[in-house]
């Protein structure tokens, strides 16, 4: 991998399938994970409120005790089981994570075990629930002084921002459980830029085609796929100037022909083991 690709791939991690192909998983970003957590927290709170209201509605003399037991167990299950039970399922994700396209994966590439899921979620107790419940209890009593508030926020802050301070974006829970959270994007196959039936294409001299390497080719690919007129005009002008070619008025046509020709040339280089990563490489 060249330096440029390596920078783009800072959050890609090797993940080799049993067939021996490296899938290069993409670690989820901090923001997406925070969003997933907020969605889960919101769902949990809504569920708690709805269930409480339903139970309160059902409360008639004689069944209060059963309802109280149900509520207590339900609350316990919600607080400690929501994350674990969903992540133990075949999707490896809570509803919030699923919505954000995330998945919990064992770092060693093995199957995600129940123990790992429990370990990563039990740690949430000290990451979020402990300082919050401490603060809430004191706030109710009216004894939450500035020091305590700052301490709780600081404590939570350390754990909250922990994923941003290590290269693998691990939460404390991930660290202990040996897991990480990856982002599974869903994209459709974009159309072929070169095509088969191009009846007549511009031809380029060898000198014009030896200006660029793979990195520039793929940047050109991106420009062509985005189809932004200004970007296309700028890139076309730059290439024409460098290759000393006349302007024929059709920027997009020129660029896609140039792309096809350059791609073919660089690919023929690949066949003989010459991989020209950037224009700086001879």
């Amino acid at each position, binding site marked *: 991998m060249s330096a440029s690709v390596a920078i783009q791939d800072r959050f890609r991690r090797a993940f080799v399938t049993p067939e021996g192909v490296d899938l290069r998983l993409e670690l989820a970003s901090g923001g997406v994970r925070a969003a997933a957590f907020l969605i889960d927290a919101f769902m949990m709170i809504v569920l708690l409120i709805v269930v409480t209201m339903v139970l309160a509605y059902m409360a008639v003399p004689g069944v209060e005790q059963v309802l109280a037991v149900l509520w207590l167990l339900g609350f316990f299950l919600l607080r400690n089981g929501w994350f674990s039970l969903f992540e133990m399922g075949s999707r490896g994700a809570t509803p919030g994570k699923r919505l954000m396209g995330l998945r919990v994966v064992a770092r060693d590439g093995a199957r*995600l075990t129940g123990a790992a899921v429990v370990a990563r979620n039990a740690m949430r*107790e*000290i990451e979020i629930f402990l300082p919050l419940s401490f603060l809430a209890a004191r706030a109710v009593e009216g004894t939450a002084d500035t020091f305590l508030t700052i301490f709780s926020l600081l404590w939570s802050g350390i754990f909250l921002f922990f994923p941003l301070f290590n290269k693998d974006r691990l939460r404390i829970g991930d660290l202990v459980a040996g897991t990480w959270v990856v982002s599974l994007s869903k994209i459709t196959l974009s159309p072929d830029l070169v095509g088969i039936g191009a009846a007549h294409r511009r*031809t380029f001299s060898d000198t014009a085609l030896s200006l660029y390497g793979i990195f520039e080719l793929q940047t050109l690919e991106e420009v062509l*796929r985005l189809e932004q007129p200004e970007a296309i005009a700028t890139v076309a002008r730059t290439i024409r100037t460098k290759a000393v070619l006349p302007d024929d008025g059709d920027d997009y046509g020129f660029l896609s022909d140039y792309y096809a020709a350059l791609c073919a040339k660089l690919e023929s280089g690949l066949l003989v083991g010459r991989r020209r990563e950037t224009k700086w490489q001879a």
Partner: protein
Amino acid sequence: MNAPVLSRPMVNATRFRAAHSADWARLEQLVTLMEKKSIRRLSDDDLLALPALYRTTLSSLSVARDTSLDRALITYLEQLCTRAYFQIYGVQTPAARQFTRFFAKAWPEAVRSLWRETLICIVLTFGAAIVAYMLVRTDPSWFYSIIPEGLASGRDPSASAEFLRSTIYDKEEDWLLPFATFLFTHNSEVAIFSFALGFAFAVPTVLLILYNGLMMGAFAAVFASKGLGLNLAAWLMIHGTTEIFAICIAGAAGMRIGMAVAFPGRLSRMEAAVIAGRLAATAMIGVILMLAAAGVLEGIGRQTILDDGLRALIGTAMFASWLAYFYVMPTFRRGHVR
């Protein structure tokens, strides 16, 4: 060299897409169906085709990476292969098998391998209890600095013997079940805390375990001073053998993580933390189950069984069965081979 450039350059990506895009599209369709619904939605034909399609796409990806420069194509294949991989290999072991494996093997073995830490926690609990007992016996005012007022609910050194006796033997008919449930959830939270706090080099865990012992000792001193020591012991034992043992295992689990982080030995700190974390988590699932059992004994057993001898017997029997389950059964399974 001035050879004419091909007038119709055909790049590998084009050829590649033409040859395989039908397979990719079919795999994508199947994977999407599995992600949205379930694998049961696939027809028999689809199920048979799935592994072949997956392998074709995977090999497409390797070939594309080496021969094609079409980045959109490679990105597409990467995400398709990843999604398919998780649908095919990401399946969990069936719940029933996980369940039996946990009870037959994972739980007792995890607890067994934590024996050293568990022993330390038990020693700490009883050490603290003895210290608190001595302190309160010599100077009852110590009681108030150990037990918060709300928890004592009148069971302090100034209480009369009759009142103390009533707290041990009077039935609380009302709200028996909810009370047992509350105790269970509360104890479980404490256990999970002491596990999670183990990460801070086990220091908070030790403090929590010590405090647990102190409270036990302080109460014992109050009851013993009125000649109710043995009665309290029986009252505590019926559920306490299970509950205190469970809390000690939770503390041990926390300690194991803290120690692994502090002294990883030959492993890297991360590897040591992961091994300890997974083992400790297995023990923790068991701790929650033990606390549920303790909650039933405490909420129902203790309220209905009033005889001291029977209370002590049940407590001892529970403790003996836990010991047999955790420490004796795994040895039999391994045929005495360590």
